[in-house]
């Protein structure tokens, strides 16, 4: 069985490489046409996309539109001594939580840079994977952009091929496997991972608005199953109860009194993750810290938005990325302690901080390390096309969005033009003291010394061997 998949994948890559060699994908016209076609794809298939997302994740269509249909158009021509060129045949792995966006966003970068692409959508979002496999060939050049569907065995075969770039969105565990595979061919990779994204809650100017944004950034994005969702909150002990009450208030406002019935909340992607999340709550000390929610519905793979107050820091819920609708609220004595708390953990993809203290803001930026920092809001850094989107440390490396997408799929070739007329004799051996001294002076940009040196030499006033 593996042999067949292997042969198919090999053929696919071979065909793509042949097509790339024709140079077709390098023309500006071709790239623009593909990007226009992608826009049309999204506009004309909104319903189908919504449906697929609902099937895989129970996503509300508005969330789906907001998060998956906003595609920036990007194309940058080459100029000057740095010539961007496509890397060649690129492989994109997209994740299951934003299965359309995480596929199309990198594809845009790859196409604008002139590459041919294989996209391997996550098998954990099968409806979306199918959708992409069926619809992309109708809109995009099928010789240049191909979809390979499948699970672990297909991934294995895919990784055996030689790629010119691999773009991976997903978990650190799989990222390590992908990078190890890439090492065999020295294939450059971009790894967009996640982490425990903290939100620091200092007493901000608008308590209510901050809480609204927090609620939206936790449960409003795929029920917390997002790389930049807020993982946990940090707040000073004395504000914790006020914060929790306000959180509950807005949760009820957005999701109704009976949250288990809310249509505005995504469900958990599959049984495996559902069980993983339930297990996080099984620890008795963790269960005891629940101050809201905690109900689960196994049939519908639904977990109620849950708040915990100070669960034990060594419990899995505080050591692993949650990626779900559970929100631990961690209290500290002074909010400044948040910095040390965050720094003692792996670097996250995003840090959020609600504060009006300018000094504290500066400290957060200079003393913590993360993919990004956003003040007084959540998630919007994803929409800012002029900002690179990517991680550091355990949250990944490489970046995209806007021009960074184009760059990440390009090789910046240095080109130097010289003339055959201008010649400097001392460049060449045989070396002599004269030439050496000339070069020393030249290096120090000591033009006066240079001229003097040459004049004296010519006049025979300086003796050299």
């Amino acid at each position, binding site marked *: 069985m593996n042999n067949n998949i292997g042969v198919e994948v090999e053929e696919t890559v071979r065909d793509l490489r042949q097509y790339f060699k024709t140079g077709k994908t390098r023309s500006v016209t071709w790239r623009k046409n593909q990007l226009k076609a992608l826009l049309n794809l999204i506009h004309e298939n909104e319903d189908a996309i919504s449906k697929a997302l609902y099937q895989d994740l129970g996503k509300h269509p508005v969330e789906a539109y907001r998060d998956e249909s906003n595609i920036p158009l990007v194309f940058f021509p080459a100029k000057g001594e740095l010539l961007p060129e496509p890397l060649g045949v690129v492989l994109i792995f997209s994740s299951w939580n934003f299965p359309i966006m995480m596929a199309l966003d990198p594809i845009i970068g790859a196409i604008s840079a002139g590459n041919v692409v294989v996209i391997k959508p996550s098998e954990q979002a099968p409806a979306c994977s199918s959708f992409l496999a069926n619809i992309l060939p109708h809109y995009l050049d099928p010789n240049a952009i191909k979809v390979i569907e499948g699970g672990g065995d297909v991934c294995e075969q895919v990784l055996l091929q030689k790629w010119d770039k691999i773009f991976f969105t997903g978990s650190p565990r799989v990222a390590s496997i992908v990078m*190890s595979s890439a090492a065999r061919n020295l294939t450059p990779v971009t790894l967009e991972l996640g982490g425990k994204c903290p939100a620091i809650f200092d007493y901000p100017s608008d308590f209510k608005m901050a809480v609204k944004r927090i609620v939206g950034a936790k449960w409003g994005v795929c029920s917390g199953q997002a790389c930049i969702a807020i993982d946990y909150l940090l707040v000073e002990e004395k504000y914790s109860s006020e914060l929790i009450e306000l959180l509950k208030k807005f949760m009820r406002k957005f999701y109704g009194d009976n949250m288990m019935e809310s249509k505005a909340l995504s469900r958990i992607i599959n049984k495996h993750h559902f069980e993983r999340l339930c297990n996080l709550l099984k620890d008795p000390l963790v269960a005891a810290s629940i101050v809201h929610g905690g109900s689960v519905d196994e049939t519908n793979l639904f977990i109620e938005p849950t708040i915990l107050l100070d669960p034990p820091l060594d419990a899995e819920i505080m050591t692993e990325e949650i990626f779900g609708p559970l929100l631990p609220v961690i209290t500290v004595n002074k909010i400044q302690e948040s910095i040390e708390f965050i720094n003692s953990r792996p670097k996250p993809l995003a840090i959020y901080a609600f504060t009006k203290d300018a000094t504290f803001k500066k400290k957060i930026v200079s003393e913590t390390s993360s993919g990004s920092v956003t003040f*007084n809001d959540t998630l919007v850094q994803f929409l*800012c096309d002029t900002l690179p989107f990517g991680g550091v440390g355990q949250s990944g490396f490489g970046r995209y969005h806007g021009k960074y997408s184009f760059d990440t799929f390009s090789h910046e070739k240095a080109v130097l033009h010289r003339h055959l007329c201008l010649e400097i004799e001392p460049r060449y051996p045989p070396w002599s003291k004269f030439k*050496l001294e000339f070069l020393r002076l030249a290096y120090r940009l000591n033009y006066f010394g240079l001229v003097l040196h040459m004049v004296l030499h010519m006049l025979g006033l300086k003796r050299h061997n």
Partner: protein
Amino acid sequence: MASSKLNKKVFDLKEASTTVKDLRITFDSGKTRSYEWKVSQLKALLELTEKHEKEIVEALYSDLSKSEAESFIQEVGMLKNSCKTALKELKHWMAPEKVKTSITTFPSSAEIVSEPFGVVLVISAWNYPFLLSLDPVIGAIAAGNAVVLKPSEIAPATSSLLAKLLGEYMDNSSIRVVEGAVDETSALLQQKWDKIFYTGNGRVARIVMAAAAKHLTPVVLELGGKSPVVVDSNINLQVAARRIIAGKWGCNNGQACISPDYIITTKDYAPKLVDALKTELEQFYGKNPLESKDLSRIVNSNHFDRLIRLLDDDKVSGKIVHGGEKDKSKLRISPTVLLDVPRDSLIMSEEIFGPLLPIITVDKLDESFDVINSAPKPLAAYIFTNNNKLKEQFVKTVSAGGLVINDTTIHLAVHTLPFGGVGESGVGAYHGKFSFDAFSHKKAVLYRSFFGDASIRYPPYTSTKTRLMKALMGGGFLAIIRALFGKS
């Protein structure tokens, strides 16, 4: 001294782990992030280079029989310039980059802040053991990292001089040199680094990247390849020949990652080119080049044997048109030119990295681009021509780390150009600001206020909200107005 060698601690996993731990403590203290610290270290590097130039040149002579001129120009001089550039530009490099924000995040302000990765590992090569050790270290320091440098054991005099000088001049709590070979390197590679910068060959690069993958450590791999030179007719042949010679034998006797590896020219032009090369070679290195003090030797007997094997290949031995003399005791091979070697010979399939220059011929020069592109992407590619159309075609179709028109190797000295490979020739780039960037994480920072919160962001989702959101996200100003008035 014998006794000091016996007392030398074995650098094993435990030592490697302790080293990283120590450096991490220093890094976490924030010491390496200050402008003052960076300047002090860069100045220290400059000072040690200037004060100990003689010892550096002697070490390079010991390791490679490198001439004083080459050592000065290509290693010491380059390194000093790199230091000076970093000192001059550091403030500017460190400044956050303000970026524009759009209506989707209005109101907001944003910037990109450069921050150090943390504790980084620089593994250097043997052919430019001084430059390739310290040039990346400059980037690491400028960006504010703590660094471990592992110089190549194949250039032992330089390695030990680097250990001594960096120990004396640099801040030992954040910059360390670890000497050794495979065992020590393996111990280092098992640690968790925040970045690894490797200069060397493709085989070891794969080992480095695989080790990095275990910790999701980003890497820069500066490798090599077969850098081709396309030579057209109707050019100033004397100048072209000199520049080819300077880039080949004038760069550590061909043992350089961007040395011209082989030449492609037309069948008609080849004899003229060979003559020009012969003439200029004699000018440069005299009638007895095996004795020339201006040529580096072959680094060791392993590489000597490897190169002789390339020449002894049946398909190739009859194709020597110049040179071919050797002296194993002195590890010397004279500048050797070969004409019309078969494309499937060993000398045409692996990177030569030595003083042998094969010339392959084609009927028409356009064919050369296919020849080049059918091989792995090299670190550099060169063309000598006055034909603008050919230049254009070359630049457009040849993929390599860097290209030079009408010269060789010199792009290395232009610090505004990124220096790095693509495909088999490597990943990432450095020099000038690119060095600072290679060792920095570019953190996105977005400042928002509470003014202008849009309720459309939040559930419960209504059709009005949907319309408005669609307009805001892609429709432009007019669409927003229409949506507000209830039209989609």
